């Protein structure tokens, strides 16, 4: 495509902003740490917040650029010899990813030391690098670019998981994620290689043309391998084994980031690969996705029932939600199809999950280094100690369970199940709603702990230890998430209509 270099640069400007910002942060850290010896304790405190706010600022600027590129790119424009494709879908996802990253950064701001993270600026820089990878991931129009961006994202994440240097479970989490993650990357890469062997191209749109009516066993093998590599990041059963340990072990900020941002990026890319590259061999992947969705929903929900650690429970719950989202893969369609449903669901899910992690961080931040820091007993009697936190957690739990007043969760399920029923997957939807009924049990158990149980300290007649004060950043996350959950539920059109508009032009470059 004959676009000038300047225009091409502008199309990827969010990416550039994020990467430059990350480099800037690293430089800033290098220079400020030299000065650190001379500044007082409070000065350091201010410094750490500075890095956080800078990160938020960078993400906001990037989001603005993202919105602007959306206007410029129109229905879709390739850049850099067709390696990057900027269309409404990638722009929309880009903004969602940036927004999610912003929430994750705000979540941890001022609470990083409590989580055992000592290198603050590096932490923020790594978050930015991972976000940059995710941005490129959803905009990749070519499979090698896709793989490389996945690796940029993943490598930053491996480091982030282990960023609580002194905690063994953090290191364990990083190692597990690294080993299994590289394994899955290998699957994806092998799938891409085979696909190249069959079609002679790595461009998604060209792949789609080449394989039309040209199905071969090798193609199926490559489809299978790529699917494994992609759903690993989504956390679908049976490729989920990493998720609980990694989620529980990683610092809560990182867990929230992974559960929302990374999952959103992976879902979007899987959507693109399945709906565009493999559109013509639907018959091969429909059965596989159907089976994966059922396994993921049932597996996630059933194992979540037994969890006593809230973070681990949320890890399994995020697996279950991935299962619901995979249903939408099977239901393409217009305004009311699976694409728009999945985008709505992703945003709703991000808000509720991020909110839930914010509450967890608010409750457990002081004891993050303990082994059982997120045990459900830590939530006993929370409604007495911190009524606001308890009420918000109840809202997020109800929303995840799909019960009003947590309307975003209900509407998300409504859109996805509606699209699936329209595509005649009634049996699948019945399995899904029964799963959603099962999930009520473990979500409500958190409410049981907060509202119906006495706090442990209360029994021993000791003064109930006060929760640490919430940082303004954390409060803003809670505010945004709870408002979003209710508002997007009351007026789902605000979100769903634009999601539907985005999906109208969904195609390959």
């Amino acid at each position, binding site marked *: 495509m004959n676009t000038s270099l300047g225009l091409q640069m502008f199309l990827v400007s969010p990416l550039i902003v994020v990467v430059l910002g990350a480099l800037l942060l690293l430089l800033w850290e290098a220079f400020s740490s030299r000065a650190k010896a001379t500044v007082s304790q409070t000065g350091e405190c201010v410094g750490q917040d500075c890095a956080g706010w800078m990160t938020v600022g960078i993400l906001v600027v990037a989001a603005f650029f993202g919105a602007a590129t959306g206007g410029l790119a129109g229905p879709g424009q390739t850049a850099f010899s067709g390696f990057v494709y900027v269309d409404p879908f990638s722009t929309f996802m880009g903004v969602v990813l940036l927004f999610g990253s912003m929430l994750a950064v705000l979540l941890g701001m001022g609470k990083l030391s409590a989580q055992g993270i000592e290198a603050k600026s590096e932490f923020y820089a790594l978050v930015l690098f991972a976000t940059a990878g995710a941005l490129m991931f959803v905009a990749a129009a070519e499979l090698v670019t896709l793989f490389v961006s996945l690796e940029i994202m993943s490598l930053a994440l491996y480091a982030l998981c282990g960023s609580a240097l002194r905690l063994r479970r953090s290191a364990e989490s990083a190692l597990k994620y690294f080993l299994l993650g590289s394994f899955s990357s290998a699957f994806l890469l092998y799938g891409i290689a085979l696909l190249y062997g069959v079609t002679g191209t790595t461009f998604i749109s060209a792949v789609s043309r080449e394989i039309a009516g040209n199905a071969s066993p090798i193609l199926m093998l490559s489809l299978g391998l790529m699917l494994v590599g992609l759903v690993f990041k989504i956390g679908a059963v049976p490729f989920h084994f990493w998720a609980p340990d990694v989620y529980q072990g990683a610092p809560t900020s990182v867990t929230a980031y992974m559960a929302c941002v990374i999952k959103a990026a992976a879902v979007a890319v899987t959507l693109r690969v399945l709906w565009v590259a493999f559109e013509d061999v639907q018959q091969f992947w429909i059965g596989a996705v159907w089976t994966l969705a059922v396994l993921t929903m049932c597996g996630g929900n059933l194992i979540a029932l037994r969890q006593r650690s809230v973070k681990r429970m949320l890890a399994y719950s995020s697996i279950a939600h991935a299962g619901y989202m995979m249903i939408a893969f099977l239901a393409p369609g217009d*305004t*009311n199809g699976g694409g728009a449903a999945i985008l709505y669901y992703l945003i709703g899910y991000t808000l509720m999950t991020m909110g839930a992690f914010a509450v967890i961080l608010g409750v457990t931040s002081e004891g993050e280094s303990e082994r059982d820091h997120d045990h459900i007993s830590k939530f006993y009697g929370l409604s007495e100690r911190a009524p606001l936190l308890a009420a918000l957690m109840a809202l997020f739990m*109800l929303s995840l369970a*799909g*019960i*009003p*007043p947590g*309307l975003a969760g*209900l509407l998300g399920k*409504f*859109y996805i*199940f*509606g699209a699936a*029923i*329209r595509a005649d997957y*009634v049996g699948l*939807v*019945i399995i899904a*709603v*029964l799963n*959603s*009924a099962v999930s*009520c*049990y473990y979500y*409500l158990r958190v*409410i*049981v702990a907060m*509202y*119906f149980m006495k706090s442990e300290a209360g029994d021993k007649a000791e003064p109930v230890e006060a929760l640490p004060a919430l940082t303004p950043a954390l409060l803003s996350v809670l505010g945004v998430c709870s408002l979003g959950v209710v508002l997007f539920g009351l007026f*789902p*059109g605000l979100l*769903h*209509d634009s999601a*539907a508009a985005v999906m109208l032009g969904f195609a390959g470059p």
Partner: protein
Amino acid sequence: MLPGDVIMDTTVAANFPFLSTIVFLPLIGAALLYLFPSSKVETVRSAALGASLVTFGISLMMLLGFDSSISAYQFVENVAWIPSFGVRYQLGVDGISLWLVMLTTFLMPIIVVASRSVTTKLRGYLAAMLVLETAMLGTLVALDLFLFYVFWELMLAPMYFIIGIWGGKRSIYATLKFVLYTVVGSVLMLVAILYVVWQHAQQHDGEITFALQQLLLGTNLSFTEEFWLFAAFALAFGIKVPIFPFHTWLPDAHVEAPTGGSVVLAGILLKMGLYGFIRFAYPLFPLAAELFAPYLAGLAVIGIVYGSLVAWAQHDIKKLVAYSSVAHLGFCVLGVVAFNVIATSGAVLQMINHGISTGALFLLVGVLYDRRHTREISEYGGLAAQVPVFAFLFLVFTLSSIALPLTNGFIGEFLILTGSFQVFPVLTAISTLGVILGAVYMLTLYLRTMFGELDTARNGNLKDVNRHELAALVPLLVLVFVIGLFPQPFLRAIEPSVAAWKGAVQMRADSLLASRGSAQRFAKELDSHEVKLAALEQLDSGSVKLLDYQPAARSDRQSLGREF
């Protein structure tokens, strides 16, 4: 007037959005409660009382504006909510939902007054109650399937908290059981709703709508589809009623719930299942309903007899009343599935009656429990001498509960039995066993607690009802006799709507049959339809009143038989 034509009567719709006001006032009230510090118990209670009384007042104004001669929905509000999915914010009230709405707004101030037995976190309790009121009212007036579903699900969370926080020892078990039972039913209903909507969209050039009236008009379903869809709806509603064998959550929930929770559960929440059958399951899937009706009637009768027997065997007063609810609601189910104007009108009225008498009984049990902290029947005895006013109130509501003539219970039960006997003679005959058993267990209860020797050591210090409790109970007492002596005003509003409802159900059955191409049966149905329309017009014009309704009903039976 053709029942199918009464889609929307815009002329009646007042300019003032009565229904939205009634539905959302309690919610606003709940939010306002948080303006007061939770320590100022009396201020908070007064505020809640004010909110619920204003709601009741506005619903009374709506009642005055309600035109009983019209069977159509009144006070209709209709605004788009989720345009891309055809979901509308559509509200309306007819004779079937009118009294349930009134009962809801009427019971809520009483529950607030009776909240004196709640000692902890009163503000949260009252807020949950008010949110629950919004959810219940919304469920009763929603005419859009998805809006209905949202309100239906919204009833869960507040009740969950009410039982869980302010409940008894096993409240966590009871409240989880309550929620999980209800959720399993209702999620399957969501699938059914979505399926119907897409079928409708397919048949109408992709025009998606969740509006009940539009779905009724032209959604053709095969019998298999109808069968499963009705089954999904029936499961959701059957669990809520509850119909045997889905009743096991009810005694647990009742026993563990605080007094106000029990009142609202028995008074209104349980009626939602029956209301759902009438409003949604029957009109949408009439032929499947016809197929299921004898089985549902059978389950209802099992519920009546079984519930009565189990109630008889209880040692705990509250459990006894809870099981008596299973039996009483069995009668209501029987009345609904009998599917004729008399029985169904009776069932609608009996829902109100049960709300009044059982609600009052739960309040009375609460009074005893507040004083003695036990509900064991053997702990009491000879109370009539010690607490005469209490004994008198208990007697009246006991008699109302066992449907003695002159009380409200009699009218409803009589209508149900009269009507359903024409359809299910054997089952109805068996169900009368429940009437007798009802008298047995309630009078035994009365005998063992109120008469006999007073155990002065244990009950000698028992105080009679105080003025707050009296204030809660007297309005109910009045209603027992008002409905018992003057049922006509109530029935006058119910009957035209029930008749129109029946006509609409039959018309939909006809159109479903027609669409399935069984021309022969269709012709037969059409034949009987003409006769029925004549009867309906007579009813609508008000020339037939209920108590002299018998002859007309008989001719109804002779000429039509069971319409299906």
